[in-house]
């Protein structure tokens, strides 16, 4: 059991839980937001399995 616990500890160290970086300081102008909105809606529609 100890060996197993140690092993699982090793595995976790080797594949660290990378926190998902959330970039909320994105630089975007309002005109670009509106220009991309239609493309974003289309992307969601056409790839519904990943959204």
């Amino acid at each position: 059991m100890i060996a197993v616990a140690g092993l699982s500890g090793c595995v976790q160290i080797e594949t660290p839980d990378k926190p998902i970086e959330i970039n909320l300081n994105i630089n975007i102008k309002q005109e670009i937001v509106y220009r991309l909105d239609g493309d974003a809606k289309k992307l969601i529609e056409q790839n519904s399995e990943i959204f």
Partner: protein
Amino acid sequence: MSMTMWKPTGLAMAAIAATAAVALMVPAAMAQRDPAYEAARAAGQVGEQPDGYLGYASTPTPAVRAIVDDINIKRKAAYTSGAPGGSTVEQFAFVTGCNLINKTRPGEKYMAPDRSWKTRDAGAPVRDSRCP
């Protein structure tokens, strides 16, 4: 047991081709979320972030982490290949994220601009002020 052997006529071949075409098109047009992903959303284990990617609203199980990683990789690829000229991948992902948060259903999780996880209710979600 008897078997009828027949040579495909031109018409039959066309019918087979048409059937195959429909069979190929339908899943592409009506592709749905994986049931495990759908369940994780409904359970509030995963939620939509303002940056256009999925996040963990609670400590994820390995299975949930695998789902999120897989989808985020695919989303990144979609944002990368789909970003229109003159915009960055991050900008396209952000605007898509605005839409995705809007589309969350009551009970699902989303991240507010202050990075807190919220549960979508009947009202409008709290989104980045730059969202369209």
